[in-house]
């Protein structure tokens, strides 16, 4: 019986690894194509290149836009995720601690943002009226507006598990609302804060819909948009396109490797509680 179970588990393990190839092989293909010659890359196969042409990467890196777009992405993603987390944590704190009817209505309005589709055309109109269309300010404020519902939801669930007695003793010690939040509560929210930063950062980094609609000047584009532009220019050189894809994947994979635990816990916490 025990032996039988061990055999079942072993075959399950082998099967699971074979299945993982479905995920891994496309990445491997891109990696191989990125060091092939133009003609070899055109076959898109998994065969090893006859010669490893790392020069493809140098060719891609010659394009100066890659560097500026990296910093554009970094700036936009950082600004958007920081603004989102501060305003969302503050709002979730007050709503969770003081559950008046009005506050709960506000909370459900935030949750509406998880389901409702964004209206791009009228958003453009509002951004024109506010004079922030085609600017960084407009872009990161818009990202924040989009990320706020999920982030408030994440914080709301977590703040409920922090004992309210803590607030009371801090207030008795003479803490005001602002100090109570920023010096006592906010440090305790660190796990959610890390999760929220990573998820929002990645979402912003990966997004290309907002620049497509609202950021027309190419000097403001992030890495993903520049890669898309690169693809349209070098459409027949899959080796260069693949090298550009790998360069784009690198920062994402690094963030994933560092923050995997937080990404997974954040996404499941949100989903399971909901």
């Amino acid at each position, binding site marked *: 019986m025990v032996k039988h179970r061990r055999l079942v588990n072993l075959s399950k393990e082998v099967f699971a690894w074979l299945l993982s190839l479905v995920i891994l092989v496309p990445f491997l293909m891109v990696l191989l194509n990125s060091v092939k010659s133009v003609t070899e890359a055109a076959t898109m196969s998994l065969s090893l290149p006859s010669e490893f042409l790392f020069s493809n990467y140098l060719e891609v890196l010659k394009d100066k836009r890659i560097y500026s777009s990296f910093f554009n992405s970094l700036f936009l993603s950082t600004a958007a995720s920081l603004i989102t987390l501060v305003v969302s944590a503050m709002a979730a704190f007050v709503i969770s601690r003081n559950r008046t009817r009005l506050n709960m209505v506000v909370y459900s309005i935030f949750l509406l943002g998880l389901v409702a589709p964004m*209206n791009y055309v009228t958003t453009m*109109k509002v951004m024109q009226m506010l004079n922030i269309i085609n600017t960084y300010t407009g872009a990161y404020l818009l990202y924040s507006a989009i990320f706020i519902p999920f982030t408030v939801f994440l914080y709301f669930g977590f703040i409920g598990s922090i004992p309210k007695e803590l607030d009371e003793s801090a207030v008795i010690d003479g803490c005001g609302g602002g100090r*109570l939040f920023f010096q006592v509560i906010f440090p305790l929210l660190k796990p959610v804060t890390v999760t929220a930063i990573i998820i929002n950062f990645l979402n912003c980094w990966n997004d290309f819909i907002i620049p497509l609609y609202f950021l027309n000047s190419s000097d403001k584009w992030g890495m993903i948009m520049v890669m898309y532009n690169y693809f349209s220019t070098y459409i027949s050189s899959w080796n260069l396109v693949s090298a550009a894809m790998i360069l784009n994947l690198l920062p994402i994979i690094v963030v994933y490797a560092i923050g995997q635990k937080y990404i997974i816990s954040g996404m499941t916490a949100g989903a399971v509680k909901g």
Partner: protein
Amino acid sequence: MYVNKIYSKKFILPALILFFLLFLLPSFMGFYYSLTNWNSMSEKIKFIGLDNFKEIFNDSGSFMFIKNTLMYAFFTTVLKVAIGLGLALMLNEGIKTKGLLRTIYFLPIIISNLIVGLMFQQVLHPSNGILNHALEFIGLSFLTQAWLEDPQWVMWSTIGVEVWKAAGFVMIIFLAGLQTVSKETIEASDMDGANYWNKFTKIIIPSIAPSILINTLLSVISGLKVFDVIFALTNGGPGRSSEVINITIFNQFSMGNYGYSTALGVLMFIFLAVISIGIIMIFTRKETNG
């Protein structure tokens, strides 16, 4: 009084103002502008009643993108939930390298859809792509297709790519849900000689009902809203055969037909609201009936 002073409403304002101005307000405005002829050609915006909606429903192309959107949302949801549950059950117990496998299965969800799209343009290439090569290699060459060029197949290909991308996410939520299945109940049923099917339908499924609901809901919502996967794979082509509602909205926006585009956005809003409420009602009724 003490409560209202410490937990000041001012704390909610920054988030609420930002969300209101750049998300809610545009949605409300959409209802008005969908009734106008707003476009990039003329300065004046004229109220035209339900003309945009009439035009949408009289256009034979609309049937196509509505059908595609519903088909995409339905089949990605069914496949993602089924495959995600299968993966979760497989990884849940008895596998030593569970952590590493979970990391791999989850990986595609954090990759930009644009990269995924370009990657699968290569994988699904009719003559050189590795999918057709693999099919030929295992002797199934009759199954090879022009995955992204054949109007008959293109929607299924985009559905397949979405499942490839997001099944790992569904799996993660199911894995968390499976931790709530009581070990004692499973052991007791083992002693009573229950087979796997019985355990699955009578114990596991009811325990993870909340995860099934949330996965279904999230998949349907993201399926109806799909834009970037299809934009990067086919941009709605060949012709309009893989066009979904958000692609149409973008195309109409690019052509400067703002009123028409907004009307489509309003339709989508109504779609999503009705379907989400419907799903929640179906599931909650099931739960209360036991």
